[in-house]
């Protein structure tokens, strides 16, 4: 992408002024190299988002952005219901509430390395992963609705985890105002056998070492110290969320004309927040958020069981935090000195509340919200912390991962699965995956430089670096 098309507001802030049908500007937060590497389609998509009714302040693009559907992946946009604002199924995506959670352990790197292969085998055996995998839990109709209303809170009540986990999950483990009745039977059927499964593609479970600390105070507050071992889980709302995304995308695309909405791209299918369709989508989407939170909570319980068997000295494995990076949430933000309720869409972007925010649990409040940035097998992952400046910059949002640099085909042409696994093994990283091609498609080299993405987010003030995590064991979906 040519930076010449932008007005440069700062070293890492690039503004595409509102023109034509754009109601607001598009603001890219990235360093020049990351901006240049972005596809021109990202600019087109960010400008299209700026054309949607009721958008507030700007259409934002995070440093890891790449070409998505309707919204760019790494896109953030807030809408005011009272100003005719919309809720956009394309602004949330198919994998509703896909996200990352991080568990702390009492282990050090040598503890894991002593049983590395046994631990990998045990995790691979107990955590259902890959295409067509099924979980041990079967939900009847009443349980399904209870899960969709209760989220991680439901899972804890059913014995997967403990109460203390809940305050370390966004919205305390439960998206309120979910409407299981607005979730189709098709979506529920797709989920019937998928509770407690990891999924495939870029979803994974990793055992990681804290490789570097950048902010000692925040790291201590988060329970992170150099050499310690953590577990990171990346997955979403499985088949249920995919089906909800599919159905409402089609429904909203068909309904847009009757709401007088001219879509710049059919993939930006949306409905007014205050319409029945908008409210139904919000109800179903919140149910999908609860599905994702329950799923990650069940996976957490399975992980704890494996560690209790293989490495009992891991201890209780408390949750550091759980973030979702495909959501629309009603939040209060100050705009031009006035606090307003906005529906903030984050598509491949992480909420990043600053220090002191009342929605954070007291133990985390002094440091800001943990922002979990996933890598891909060989690449590092990061823990960042939300900042005060991030609120003003992009409605308290930050990046979510490295973002792809190569397509899946390009990756397959360049690497073979076995080769990737062997190269990672030579670096001390053990990978288990049901599909060799899946490993090739997710090869670390297929992703952007996560260090550059995180450095840009840190330097711009979206979130500040706390710790870098290096993989030891990776279970790929």
């Amino acid at each position, binding site marked *: 992408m040519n930076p010449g098309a932008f007005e440069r507001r700062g070293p890492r802030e690039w503004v595409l002024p509102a023109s034509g049908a754009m109601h607001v500007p598009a603001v890219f937060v990235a360093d020049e190299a990351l901006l240049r590497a972005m596809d021109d389609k990202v600019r087109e998509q960010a400008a299209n988002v700026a054309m949607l009714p009721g958008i507030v302040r700007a259409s934002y693009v995070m440093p890891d952005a*790449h070409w998505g559907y309707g919204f760019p992946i790494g896109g953030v946009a807030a809408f005011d219901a009272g100003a005719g604002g919309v809720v956009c199924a394309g602004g949330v995506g198919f*994998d509703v509430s896909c996200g990352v959670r991080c568990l702390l352990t009492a282990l050090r790197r040598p503890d894991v390395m002593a049983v590395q292969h046994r631990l990998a085998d045990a995790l691979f055996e107990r955590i259902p992963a890959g295409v067509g995998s099924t979980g041990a839990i079967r939900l009847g109709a009443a349980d399904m609705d209870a899960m969709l209303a209760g989220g991680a809170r439901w899972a804890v009540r059913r014995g997967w985890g403990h109460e203390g986990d809940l305050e370390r999950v966004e919205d305390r483990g439960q998206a309120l105002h979910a409407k299981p009745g607005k979730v189709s039977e098709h979506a529920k059927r797709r989920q019937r056998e998928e509770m407690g499964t990891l999924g495939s593609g870029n979803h994974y479970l990793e055992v990681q070492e804290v490789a570097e600390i950048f902010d000692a105070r925040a790291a201590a507050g988060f329970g992170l110290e150099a050499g310690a071992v953590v577990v990171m889980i990346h997955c979403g709302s499985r088949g249920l969320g995919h089906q909800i995304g599919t159905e409402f*995308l089609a429904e909203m695309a068909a309904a847009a004309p009757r709401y007088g909405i001219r879509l710049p791209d059919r993939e930006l299918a949306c409905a007014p927040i205050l319409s029945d369709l908008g409210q139904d989508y919000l109800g179903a989407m919140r149910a999908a958020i609860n599905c994702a939170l329950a799923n990650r909570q069940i996976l957490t319980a399975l992980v704890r069981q494996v560690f209790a068997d293989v490495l009992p000295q891991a201890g209780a494995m408390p949750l550091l935090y759980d973030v979702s990076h495909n959501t629309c949430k009603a939040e209060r933000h100050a705009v031009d000195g006035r606090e307003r309720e906005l529906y903030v869409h984050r598509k491949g972007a992480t909420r990043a509340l600053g220090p002191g925010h009342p929605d954070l649990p007291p133990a985390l409040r002094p440091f800001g919200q943990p922002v979990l940035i996933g890598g891909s097998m060989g690449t590092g992952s990061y823990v960042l912390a939300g900042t005060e400046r991030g609120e003003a910059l992009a409605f308290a949002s930050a990046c979510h991962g490295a973002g792809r640099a190569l*397509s899946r085909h390009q990756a397959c042409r360049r690497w073979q699965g076995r080769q990737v696994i062997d190269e990672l093994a030579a670096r001390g990283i053990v990978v288990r995956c049901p599909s060799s091609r899946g490993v090739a498609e997710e090869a670390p080299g297929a992703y952007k430089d996560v260090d550059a993405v995180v450095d840009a987010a840190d330097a711009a003030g979206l979130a500040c670096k706390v710790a870098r995590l290096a993989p030891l064991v990776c279970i790929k979906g």
Partner: protein
Amino acid sequence: MQAGWEHFDHGADIGVRGHGPTESAAFEQAAMALTAVITDPGGVAARQSVPLGCEAADDELLLAAWLNALVFEMAVRRMLFARFSVVIEDAPMRPGRAPSPWETGSPAATHVDTRAAGRRQLRAVAEGEPLDPARHHPAVEVKGATLTALRVAREGDGWLAQTVVDV
């Protein structure tokens, strides 16, 4: 035009493209491309038949609906498909269509155009077999067919049908 399929690049995901002498053939080939996202279609035996049907406002939305119907059946039946037989035609005229669950009771539903005119429908049989991870080595599951790069059109002496699928 000879029937065939291919993939095209799209950032994090994959484009599926079918072409053939007829629109139906192009849809069948797009479905082959969908299977090829997951596994080698040559390794999938046509042991079981599953009837499918869908309807949409136009040919392009019909392609998305067709691929999404296959995604759904693959997910709930734990199956892979490798042979397809598709018939596409105008949806029959009728006084009104049943409102979707989202339109029921909605004031906005009174503004819905209930005429079926211009709508297209698809009837199909997909043949395949239960997924066997040890034999099929599935690389990735498809979450859904998007409306990105969605195109159904006559091209030369045949038809093209394509869209991007989210994986």
